[in-house]
Each structure stands twice: as structure tokens, then as C-alpha cells.
């Protein structure tokens, strides 16, 4: 009996292959986008874990110096005092064709579990200078004289070597970067403060904030994945709903033949599970391909923005696949729940005729309107009183959902107004009919609205950001040449060499510090017109530059300013070794995840003597000559010199990549929305015949009807676009003023880019046209015979 019933139920799909294709495509697309994003997230997180295990030793405590350098003698002194510490020497160096992070460890003392788990470590080789690197890094390095071996466990962009080799590669003196602390220590150790008061003990996990820093990036991705998933479910919902409507007669017959409702429901549920598994598997393959295609860009973004080493090649994780399938099943359940619920509540002999949609949905419309209002109120509340990134995303979700729910109501309103104004009977019918069919299309239109609003919102946010960023970059990168000394001796030599050849040498020194409870850095700033003239400041105190130069206070970056709620002129900031310093102003500092404070150079060097100079920003009127002199006369390798154009290019490249993935997902979401619309239109076109046939009988040609159908889709699409515009701008405002501030710490002005909207509008209309073309074309070509069948008695 059940098998017979299942055969009967499934025969529907055989007779409606397009519907089946839509259902499967919707599920597959939803799964693909969601699982693709999840794969990206998982890959990145795994990479952070590797990096933290190796680079920052997430599981072990560390000993650091604010300057980032520790005398080797201090390491020996700690060991001689019994402290079980191991030295780490880390820095950047050119190997082969690329710059890598050189990570030098001392394998004899390295605490258990901190080293990468190398499959077959060649320790003799390691002592002799063999380096281990990720296969991808090896490819990037290319041919080199240095002996290197592949090791998946080493983070991308890093070469793991013995400390002796690292010292050579980095041309480092007798110093190290930090120490790792073994978990087991002998009893009765003298405290660190008495042995080395300038060193600080960093508890496990504290030094590694990659996860925290990149959390906002991943939240972003997840939000997009979820949006795309939701849009995909719209497709599923409409396909399942339609199949349910069309099979009403069959359900009635089956029940009349004695199939219990329980079994019928079970059959339908089984059917959905099977579809979910098939489409979900296809979606996983698609999602994996998608993730693999996007990962290189994501990896570059994360490396550029946060310095997080993420490999560009995707690993397959069975857990990920299971989670993806689970999500598909849950989504199918959600999308099909309504149909099953209706089946459960359908009287066995309900009329087979499709219900009067327009009438029945009036009550639903009212409920939807109330829900939209409630969500809008919630959004308002979140905007006024919410705080934190999650509240920001909740606000986003509330705005989007409220807008989506309001879409059918607003469209109905607009269509009613148009209907009132119509003068010809065909126009009147056009508007009335559009309005009447709105409930059937509303889910697809809601999906389209969401995709468009997300596009406009994210596009506006990115474009606003870019405009601000370019202006800011021009001001920030005024130094014509930047030079990186490898060590203090070279810094001194460079300073002497550069002094007679340049207009100004601005040394860059910094220490790591905890600022207002956040990981951050204190920078030294030489009093110079370069900064006075070019640095835009928020809310500076009067004579800010003079007071800064006099060492009376600090400037802080916008991130710190906003997160810590500082106020220039009245608040102070605690600096290590100095104490409270008045905050004199704040400056924008885009692309930096850390808190930052700027102190006058003299004050800095008094407080933190012997801090190495990491970079010189050089003002000169003849940059090419200076670069030539540095290379030829001083003998500085090219890798240590950056000119202004290079720096700008690098910054812009990082910026563009940051949003590449966002935009790619945006486009995909729009594509999914187009598919949703297509699904809705195709399925609708089947039941439209009975509505169109009278008009044909009354003297409208099939071609006219097809044109009107196409026109209707375009009009609805255009109206949806129109509605999406304010929603998108609201979204952009939330992103710029709330999400960005929470996630990155900077607030940007909203700028309008009508050109972008026009382009998006064009794309949206093309998408709608593409979605509506097939049903309209079918109506035009096969119209007469199909329309005639409506009137045939045997129907």
C-alpha cells in the first residue's frame, strides 16, 4: 500500500520534471552556499589553530619583552635560575622568490606539544639547517639553495628552522624574539619579577588573538552564507508548496482509497528526506568547489588583513559534509513543514480545486504585516539600545526580515494604486491580475528583495569604505621611501647614511602593550610636518601637535577611541611604565585590528629605551636617487626598501581582496534569488493557463499574453528593486555605523553611489528577464493549443 502510494506520489515529479529540477536546484544551491562558506570558515579556523599551536604557542605560556626582543643572555639567565623556557627567534626574511616568516626554535628545549607534528623529522638535518614549510609555501619560494622539506603542519607562509639557522637568515644578533614556557617546572622557582623585571609572562592563549581578530570576518561570511541558504529555501518552499497544491486531488484519492493520513504524511516526509539527501550531496560537491574557488582570495585577505596564515588549498573534512547535509535536512524540514501541516489538517474530501488564493491570503497578509511591524519595532529598539556585534547582526536580521515581510504588502498597495489609475481594460486586468498572483510570487520576490538589498547595502558599504580609505591612504603614505633595518646596528648605520641625503628621517619604533585592556601597540612619533599636516584627527584638543611633541599626552587610533569610549581632553590612557597619559585626540587607522597609541619620540625613548627601530619613513625630493644610493652605496637588499607607490599598491590590493569574497557571495545570492523567481514563475505558469484562457477567448493573442506575462515579471522586479533601495541603504548604514564599529572599531560616513545602483538594477532586470523568459516563451509558442485545452470538455 505504502509502496503504491509512494509510486503515485513520485509519479507527479516525473510528469513535472521542471518542478523537480527546481526543488533539487534550490536545495543544492542553498546547501552549496551555506556549506561552501562553512568550509571556508572551518579551513581558516583550522589554520589559526595550527598557527597558534606553532607561532604563538596557544597551549603554552610565553615570556615576552614589550620591544619584541630579548637578549639571549636573559634566556640563559632564566634557564640557570631553573626556569624551563625555550627560545624562539622569529622574523621576516626573503627565501627564494618570496618573503616568509622565519620561525627559529630550539628543539632540545621546546616544550612538548608546541612543535609541529612532523611525520618524519630529520633532526640531524634540522640541526644542520634543514627548514620545514607548508607545500604551498615551498611552491611560493620556488628554487632556492636552502634545504627545505614539506610539512603540512607548518602554517602557510612560515619556514620552521633551527634557531641557529634562523639567526643566520634574519641576520640577528644575540637576541631572541620570545620564550615559550614548559608546562612542567621545577619546584621552588624564583619569581620572574625578581629575575627579569622587564620581561612579562603571557598566559596560554593570550598572545594568540587570531581567532578573536578574525571572528568578525567569519561572522560576516556566516551571515552571508545563512542569507544565501534562506534564499535557497525560498525556492524549496515554493516548489514543495506547489507540488502539494497540485497533488491535492491525489492525496484525496489516496485517502479515499484507505491510506491512513499518518502513512501519507510519512510518505511525503520520506520523499522530502530523499530529495534533501540527493540535492544535499550535490550541494556539498558544489559547495566544496565554491569554497575551493574562493579560498585563495579568502586566504590572501586573512593574511593581508590579520596576518593569519591560511593555506590556499582546501582539505576535505567529513564532519563538514555531515553538518552540511544536516543543515539541508533541517532546511527542507523547515520549507516543507507548512505543506505537511496543511496535509495533516486537510479534510479527506476537501475540494480538489485550488483554493482561492487572494481571498484566503488576506488574513495571512494581515498577520505578515503585523510581524513586519513587530520586527521593525525590534530593529528600532536594537538600533537605539543594542550593543555588541551580535546585537548589530540581530539588527541587520530584523531590518531585512521586516522589509522582506513588508514586500508583498507594499507591492499589493502599489499595484492597487496602479489598478485604480488604469484606463484600458487590459491594463486594469494586468494590475488586478498581478495583485491577485502576488501571494504565489511573494516568497520569490521577498528573496529577490533580500538579495538586492544585501547587494545595495554591502556595495554601498564597500564603496563608501573604499572612498574613505583611498583619501586616508593618500594622507597616510606621504613618506616617499620606507626602509626596514634588519637590526640595531644596521639601523644606526642607515641613520648615519641617510641623514645627509634626505629631508627627514622618521624612525618607526613600537612596543607591544595592553591598552585599556585590549591588545595593542604604542608607537613613537617624531614631531614633523609630515604628521602635523597630513594626519586627520577627530576631536583634537587645542594645540594637539604641540602638546603631543611636548610629551604631554597621547593620540589614540579610532579603534581604541571607540572601543574604550575615550574622550579627548578629559580621559587618560594607562601606558606601561608611564602611567596615565591624557588623550589628546584620535586618528583613523583602517585595516588595523589592534589598539594603538602614539607618543612623542623623545618621551617614548625615555620610557622604553633600546627599542629597536623597525622602519624609517623617509622624506626626500628624489626618491629614485635615494633608492639607488641605498642599494648601490649602502648595499641594502631591495626587499628592505619600499617606495610609496609600492606601499599604496599593497594596501589597495589588501583592501580589494578584503571584500572580494563578500562581493562574490553577493553575486551568488542574487543568482540564487533569480533562480527562486524562475522556479516560482515556471511553477506558476502551469496554473496560469486557466486564468489566461478567457482573455485569449476574448481576443488577446498568445503573443500579447506572453508579452504581458514578461512585463508583469519586469514590473514586479522593478518595484522590488525600488523597495530594496531604501532597505539596502538602511543596511549600509547599519554596516557602517554599527557592525564596522563593533567588528573593526572604525565608523565611516555613508556615501551614495547611484551609478552602482543603476548597474545593479540592470543586472537585476536581466536576472528577472532571464527568470521570466522561459515561461513567457512557452506561453507564446505553445499557447493556443494549451489555452484551448482549458475549454475542452475532457479536461
Amino acid at each position, binding site marked *: 500500500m505504502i509502496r503504491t502510494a509512494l509510486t503515485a506520489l513520485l509519479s507527479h515529479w516525473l510528469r513535472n520534471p521542471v518542478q523537480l529540477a527546481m526543488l533539487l536546484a534550490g536545495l543544492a544551491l542553498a546547501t552549496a552556499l551555506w556549506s561552501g562558506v562553512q568550509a571556508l570558515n572551518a579551513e581558516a579556523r583550522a589554520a589559526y589553530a595550527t598557527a597558534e599551536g606553532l607561532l604563538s604557542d596557544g597551549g603554552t605560556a610565553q615570556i615576552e619583552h614589550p620591544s619584541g626582543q630579548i637578549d639571549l643572555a636573559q634566556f640563559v639567565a632564566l634557564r640557570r635560575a631553573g626556569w624551563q623556557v625555550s627560545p624562539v627567534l622569529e622574523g621576516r626574511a626573503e627565501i627564494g622568490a618570496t618573503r616568509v616568516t622565519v620561525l627559529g626554535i630550539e628543539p632540545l628545549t621546546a616544550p612538548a606539544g608546541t612543535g609541529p607534528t612532523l611525520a618524519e623529522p630529520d633532526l640531524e638535518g634540522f640541526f644542520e639547517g634543514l627548514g620545514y614549510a607548508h607545500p604551498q609555501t615551498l611552491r611560493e619560494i620556488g628554487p632556492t639553495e636552502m634545504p627545505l622539506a614539506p610539512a603540512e603542519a607548518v602554517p602557510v607562509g612560515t619556514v620552521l628552522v633551527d634557531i641557529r639557522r634562523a639567526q643566520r637568515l634574519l641576520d640577528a644578533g644575540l637576541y631572541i624574539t620570545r620564550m615559550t614556557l614548559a608546562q612542567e617546572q621545577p619546584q621552588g622557582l624564583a619569581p620572574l619579577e625578581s629575575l627579569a623585571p622587564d620581561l612579562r609572562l603571557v598566559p596560554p592563549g593570550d598572545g594568540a588573538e587570531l581567532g578573536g581578530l578574525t571572528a568578525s570576518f567569519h561572522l560576516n561570511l556566516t551571515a552571508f552564507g545563512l542569507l544565501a541558504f534562506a534564499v535557497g529555501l525560498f525556492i524549496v518552499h515554493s516548489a514543495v508548496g506547489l507540488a502539494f497544491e497540485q497533488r491535492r486531488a491525489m492525496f484525496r484519492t489516496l485517502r479515499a482509497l484507505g491510506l491512513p493520513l499518518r502513512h501519507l504524511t510519512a510518505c511525503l516526509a520520506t520523499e522530502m528526506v530523499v530529495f534533501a539527501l540527493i540535492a544535499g550531496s550535490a550541494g556539498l560537491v558544489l559547495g566544496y568547489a565554491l569554497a575551493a574557488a574562493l579560498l585563495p582570495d579568502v586566504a590572501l585577505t586573512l593574511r593581508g588583513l590579520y596576518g593569519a596564515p591560511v593555506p590556499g588549498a582546501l582539505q576535505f573534512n567529513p564532519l563538514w559534509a555531515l553538518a552540511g547535509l544536516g543543515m539541508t535536512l533541517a532546511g527542507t524540514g523547515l520549507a516543507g513543514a507548512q505543506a505537511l501541516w496543511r496535509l495533516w489538517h486537510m479534510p479527506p474530501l476537501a475540494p480538489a480545486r485550488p483554493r*482561492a488564493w*487572494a*481571498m484566503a491570503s488576506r488574513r495571512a497578509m494581515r498577520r505578515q504585516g503585523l510581524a513586519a511591524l513587530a520586527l521593525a519595532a525590534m530593529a528600532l529598539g536594537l538600533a537605539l539600545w543594542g550593543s555588541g556585534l551580535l546585537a548589530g547582526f540581530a539588527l541587520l536580521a530584523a531590518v531585512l526580515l521586516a522589509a522582506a515581510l513588508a514586500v508583498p504588502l507594499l507591492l499589493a498597495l502599489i499595484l492597487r494604486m496602479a489598478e485604480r489609475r488604469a484606463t*484600458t*481594460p*487590459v491594463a*486594469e*486586468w494586468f494590475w*488586478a*491580475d498581478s*495583485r*491577485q*498572483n502576488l501571494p504565489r510570487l511573494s516568497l520569490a520576490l521577498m528573496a529577490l528583495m533580500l538579495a538586492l538589498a544585501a547587494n545595495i547595502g554591502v556595495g554601498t558599504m564597500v564603496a563608501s569604505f573604499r572612498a574613505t580609505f583611498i583619501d586616508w591612504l593618500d594622507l597616510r603614505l606621504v613618506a616617499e621611501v620606507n626602509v626596514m633595518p634588519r637590526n640595531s646596528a644596521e639601523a644606526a648605520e642607515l641613520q648615519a647614511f641617510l641623514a645627509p641625503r634626505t629631508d627627514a628621517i622618521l624612525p618607526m619604533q613600537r612596543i607591544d602593550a595592553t591598552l585599556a585592556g585590549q591588545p595593542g601597540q604604542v608607537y613613537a612619533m617624531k614631531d614633523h610636518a609630515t604628521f602635523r599636516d597630513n594626519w586627520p584627527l577627530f576631536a583634537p584638543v587645542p594645540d594637539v601637535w604641540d602638546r603631543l611633541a611636548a610629551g604631554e599626552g597621547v593620540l589614540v587610533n579610532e579603534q581604541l577611541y571607540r572601543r574604550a569610549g575615550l574622550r579627548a581632553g578629559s580621559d587618560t590612557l594607562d601606558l606601561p611604565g608611564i602611567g596615565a597619559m591624557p588623550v589628546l585626540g584620535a586618528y583613523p587607522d583602517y585595516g588595523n585590528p589592534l589598539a594603538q597609541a602614539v607618543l612623542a619620540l623623545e618621551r617614548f625613548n625615555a620610557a622604553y629605551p633600546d627599542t629597536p627601530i623597525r622602519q624609517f619613513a623617509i622624506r626626500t625630493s628624489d626618491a629614485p636617487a635615494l633608492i639607488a644610493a641605498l642599494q648601490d652605496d649602502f648595499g641594502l637588499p631591495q626587499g628592505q626598501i619600499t617606495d610609496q607607490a609600492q606601499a599604496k599598491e599593497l594596501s589597495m590590493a589588501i583592501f580589494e581582496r578584503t571584500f572580494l569574497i563578500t562581493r562574490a557571495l553577493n553575486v551568488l545570492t542574487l543568482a540564487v534569488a533569480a533562480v527562486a523567481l524562475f522556479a516560482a514563475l515556471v511553477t506558476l505558469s502551469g496554473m496560469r493557463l*486557466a*486564468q489566461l*484562457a*478567457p*482573455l*485569449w*477567448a*476574448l*481576443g*488577446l*493573442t*498568445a*503573443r*500579447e499574453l506572453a508579452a504581458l506575462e514578461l512585463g508583469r515579471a519586469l514590473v514586479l522586479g522593478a518595484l522590488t528593486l525600488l523597495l530594496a533601495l531604501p532597505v539596502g541603504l538602511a543596511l549600509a548604514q547599519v554596516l557602517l555605523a554599527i557592525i564596522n564599529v563593533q567588528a573593526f572599531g572604525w565608523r565611516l560616513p555613508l556615501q551614495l553611489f547611484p551609478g552602482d545602483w543603476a548597474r545593479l538594477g540592470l543586472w537585476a532586470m536581466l536576472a528577472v528577464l532571464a527568470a521570466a523568459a522561459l515561461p513567457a516563451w512557452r506561453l507564446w509558442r505553445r499557447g*493556443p493549443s494549451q*489555452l*484551448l485545452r*482549458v*475549454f*475542452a*470538455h475532457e479536461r
Partner: protein
Amino acid sequence: MIALDIQELSKSFDSVEGRIPVLDSVSLQLQPGQSMALTGESGSGKSTLLHLAAGLEDPDAGQISIAGEALTGLGDTGRAALRRAHIGLIFQQFNLIPSLTVAANLAFQARLAGRHDPARIQTLAERLGLGELLARYPEQLSGGQQQRVAIGRCLAARPALVLADEPTGNLDEATGDSVLDLMLELTEADGVALLLVTHSPRLAARCAARVHLRAGRIGAVP
């Protein structure tokens, strides 16, 4: 002028058993104000004849002209225009435009044909007993009410010819009779020709003329 002139009309369909002739050289004429019943068994070709007369299908051979205008030889657009101008169609069901009110449905064809006359629609609505129902939508009407709207809509456009295909087939006998009475009365009063396809001899008997189709040919009335 002859309202409907059909000459030597032939039509056959493709089926799995080969080509099946449905109409074989059928000729008939209908004068303005005349009503004619077209009867026959299922599959005798009466619906096909009506569809051909309405320009909904193309004949294989033969001529059709309506109110003096030749229908055969016209393209889809031309046939639609002719339909708009001169023909009123009434089917067993699916006559009304579901998204429009009764009032809008009544006026629709007249406006399409450019012969909109509110006074006439008002009269027709009263005559058809639709006065109370003007603001309703088709699905809120009973079957009989729906067919009365279809008749009203048809006649409001002042067509030369009304083609009706089992217009009372979905109605009970009493309702069907009253609908048919109205239709006959109004077409006759307006001088409109009526071709009524029906399988019911009782209904056919009420028309002025009667033609019986048997296997695609006009035969003797049984």
C-alpha cells in the same frame, strides 16, 4: 448580412491511430437574431466546429466569415481582432477573469471592442439579476451566476455572433433553463446570432434552427 457563413469546412487531428477526420465538408449559415443548436454525440466534432468558428483553431479546408469578414486566411492577430470585434464566446466553465470584479468582467469585452456603454451594462446587469453582485469576484459566485455574468459580458460588447459551448453543462436543470432562457431572449432582442453547442435535445429544441453532426458531417436530426 450573414452573421456566420461556413463553407465546406474540414478538420482532422493527428492521433496515435493516424489522421482522424473530425469535420468533413461542413457548411452552414446563421442570420442575425437567429439561434441555432448544434447537436451530436461526444466526438462528433461539434466543439471543434465552434472553436473553428471562433478562430481559436485553424481549419484544414473551407471558408468561414463572420459579419461579412473572412476569418479563414487571417493570422493569429487578425483572428484575435475579429474575435474581439464580433464574437462572444461562452464556455461550460472558465469564462470569467478571476482577478476582476463582476462589474469589470461585464465591461471588459465591450471596452476591448471599443463599444463601452455603461447604461447598457447597467440594463444588462439588472436584466440578468446581477445588480447585487457587481462588486464581487467570480469565485464568490455560484455557477449559474457566473454564466449569467458571461452572457452579460458577451452581449455588452454587442457582438454579431455568440458562440456557446455547453453553457449550461455545469448547472442543474432549473438554473440551466433559466440561463438559456435569458440567453435566447437577449440575443434575439439584440439581433445577435447564436450558435449553441449542446448534447441535450431538450435544449436544442428551444432554438430556432437545429443542426446535427454525425461523424463530422451534418446529418438528419434524430
